[in-house]
């Protein structure tokens, strides 16, 4: 890369992009900086210079990359909480150590945060002075023509039979035509172009700060919440309706936009993979109706990759399954429980696990725990599996029945999808005298001990969905696009200076051309040659 004759032309400095002292294009640091006068201010200044140097930025970047590695080696609380629990069970000793180090929450750990905060302080300390200098540079004139162009890049000489004035004016027109900002110094034209490169660089680095700030602060105003919605039931957006809810730090109830959603139908389509015999899901579509206050229900479809926008809230389809409708009656035929119960899929053929709790209306509290098989097949050991995800008349509900205190009155919230059987007695199933209850649709079975009956009344679908509200998402996207745009501009717009010097030479003129790269510029030599050619052509056309 060409070294600039900067020391010989000190006025040039005003036009330079300001760079940290150890930037390859910057002047070497003056002696005073390497050995500061160490008063408290001196220390502070020294420290600040160190922090905002290119070397520090580089080391912090590399540290950031390194510090992110553990976050991929062990499960993270934020993205894989079950994995963390499993890790603890499998390796209790290493878990202790790693957990103390914060490795299971790498990306919010003190060490990771320290690195990126330092990096961003350094970044701001770098951007601010450079922005100021760049704004000045945008108003500055192109630099004086160096005395000896022959030392610069792409130096070219030619002669022409014309007068000095004509040649200089043609030089001005040539450089201007090539997009240079030009200035005449005696009999030479100085041109500079590519200010956009530094602009792009500053936009890029500023947008990095923008992303960090919007993600860090803006994300706190939103929330995510999960809900299982069973066919023909509706969900209304309020705190109490969610199965689980994760508010951001600055969340208030106002962020919950009023709307309702009802699941009308669900379709899953599958394709049989002949080589493995497995069904591959091809498409999931939930047919919904949605309503905002004061309007009527309107139809909407929800698919896996296309969230539904409800005002500023997005709704995602996470999962789906079957919800058998069961009716439990007491010996007199009075209904103790009736309704659809979501069974959670356990495999690709939708063998599904579910729990039915009947706390009231019978002599005992009852809990049913069992499987639903959409397309059942009995195995040699008497257990069942499902051979396809398609339900039919043979779809089977197989339930083990427990009686005892279900623990629903204790006031603690209990998971609707699990049954703690520790304090319960099995009264139908492998450990009881009565075998497990097996029902196909429409069938009714007697409960043991004359407790009543259970009927498999019908079959419905359910979907599990996530609602997501993040008011700053658009800003994050905007900054991300600025990052990309700034990057492209700063990497691919060349910033260069070009000079054309004219001097009288016998009957004609002697023309000198040379360029200077500001940053990476592989095309500079070709550009100088091109300018020389265009200039010559312009002089020729003027004569003829």
């Amino acid at each position: 890369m060409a070294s600039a004759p900067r020391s010989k032309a000190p006025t040039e400095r005003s036009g330079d992009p300001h760079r940290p002292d150890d930037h390859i294009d910057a002047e070497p640091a003056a002696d005073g900086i390497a050995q500061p006068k160490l008063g408290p201010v001196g220390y502070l200044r020294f420290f600040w210079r160190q922090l905002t140097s290119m070397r520090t930025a580089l080391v912090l970047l590399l540290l950031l990359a390194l510090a992110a590695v553990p976050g991929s080696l062990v499960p993270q609380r934020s993205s894989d909480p079950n994995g963390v629990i499993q890790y603890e069970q499998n390796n209790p000793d290493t878990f202790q150590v790693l957990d103390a180090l914060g490795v299971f929450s790498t990306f919010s750990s003190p060490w990771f945060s320290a690195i990126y905060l330092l990096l961003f302080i350094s970044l701001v300390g770098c951007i601010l002075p450079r922005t100021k200098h760049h704004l000045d540079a945008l108003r500055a004139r192109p630099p004086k023509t160096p005395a000896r162009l022959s030392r610069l890049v792409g130096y070219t000489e030619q002669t022409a039979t014309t007068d000095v004035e004509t040649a200089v004016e043609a030089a001005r027109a040539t450089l201007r035509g090539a997009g240079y900002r030009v200035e005449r110094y005696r009999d030479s034209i100085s041109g500079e172009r590519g200010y956009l490169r530094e602009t792009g660089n500053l936009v890029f680095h500023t947008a990095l700060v923008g992303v960090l700030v919007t993600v860090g602060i803006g994300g706190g105003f939103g929330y995510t919440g999960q809900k299982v919605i069973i066919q023909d039931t509706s969900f209304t957006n309020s705190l109490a309706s969610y199965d689980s809810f994760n508010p951001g730090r600055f969340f208030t109830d106002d962020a919950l936009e009023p709307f309702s959603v009802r699941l009308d139908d669900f379709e899953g389509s599958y394709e049989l993979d002949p080589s493995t015999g497995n069904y591959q899901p091809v498409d999931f579509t939930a047919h919904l109706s949605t309503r905002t206050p004061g309007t009527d229900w309107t139809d909407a479809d929800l698919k896996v990759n296309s969230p539904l926008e409800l005002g500023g809230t997005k709704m995602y389809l996470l999962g789906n399954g079957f919800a058998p409708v069961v009716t439990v009656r007491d010996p007199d035929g009075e209904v103790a429980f009736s309704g659809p119960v979501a069974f959670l899929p356990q495999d690709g053929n939708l063998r599904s696990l579910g729990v039915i709790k009947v706390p009231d209306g019978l002599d005992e509290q009852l809990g049913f725990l069992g499987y639903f098989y959409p397309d059942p097949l009995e195995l040699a050991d008497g257990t069942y599996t499902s051979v396809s995800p398609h339900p039919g008349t043979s779809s089977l509900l197989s339930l083990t029945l427990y009686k005892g205190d279900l623990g629903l009155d204790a006031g603690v919230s209990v998971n609707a999808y699990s049954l703690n059987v520790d304090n319960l007695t099995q009264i139908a199933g492998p450990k009881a005298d009565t075998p497990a209850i097996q029902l196909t649709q429409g069938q009714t079975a007697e409960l043991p001990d004359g407790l009543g009956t259970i009927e498999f009344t019908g079959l419905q679908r359910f979907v599990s969905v996530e609602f997501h509200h993040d008011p700053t998402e658009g800003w994050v996207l905007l900054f991300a696009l600025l990052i990309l745009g700034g990057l492209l501009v700063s990497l691919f717009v060349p910033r260069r200076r070009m000079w054309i010097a004219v001097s009288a030479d016998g009957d004609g003129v002697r023309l000198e051309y040379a360029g200077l790269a500001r940053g990476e510029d592989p095309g500079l030599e070709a550009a100088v040659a091109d300018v020389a050619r265009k200039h010559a052509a312009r002089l020729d056309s003027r004569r003829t």
Partner: protein
Amino acid sequence: MTTATLAAYSLLAVYSAAAVYVLAFIGYVVDLSGRSSRALAAQPAASASVASTTGTTTVLAPPAPPTAAPEVRDSRAARVAFALTVLGFVIHVLALVLRGIAAARAPWANMFEFAVTGTAVIVGVYLAVNIFRNVRYVGAYITGLVSLLLMLATINVYVDVVPLPPALQSGWLVIHVFVAILGTGFFALGAGLSIAQLLQARRETGATDQPRFLRGFPSSEALENTAYRVNVIGFAFWTFTLIAGAIWAEHAWGRYWGWDTKEVWTFIIWVVFAGYIHARATRGWRGAPSAWLAIVGFAAVLFNFTVVNLFFKGLHAYSGL
């Protein structure tokens, strides 16, 4: 034709392309072995005092020729190898087209398909860069790498054409993954150039004259400049990959960023290359240290594609073998 026969023809084309690349590799190696003697024979360019005269102007001192090209002309072996590389590439692309028709979608939805598309892109980038600048001297590295990867892919991770799970049915998948592959192609070439740069720099110190073929290579500085151009284009694609991936994640999972394993590695690679770009602009870091960063960056890309895909758990895991 049925899906199965199309897929079978596609696989056959993959084998053929790999075989042609191996032949090209041999050609490049022959070229390398002859490079040092040809380098000695190469003459310094004569500098003309008057280069050309047009109309009224006379050019006195022509601009110096660009230094990035190797000082020696390509041998016949290199030209044959290059032609074979083009042939292999055509067959390779044909394999992709057949696979795409068989699956009725873009052919980069599982690891086998990533590998076949990714290697095609590596070769494509190499061929395209050769239009602008002669980098045939890294042909042995490119064809060697690509035939090795193709062999590993067909032996270890071959899968038949299967339909896409709903979570992968997205225009963003097509874009995100393809741009990631494009970035990978540039990083692969950049790493080759950086390796050559390191070896050349060691030779230039005078400590050793091995390997001798480096005599016919450009100077370490010219190699570094070319590597930088190539890596920077890769970085731009990688930045886009990161953003497109976040948009896709937002559509599919309801959050644009969640530090999922694959996201972590995409981020690490991005930061390493940002470090590389900084190193090039930092006093004391230009030259060998920055070249090492480019190589580490590409190693991380390969790691991300192989080890992370196969052994790490995460949401991306279902993109499948």
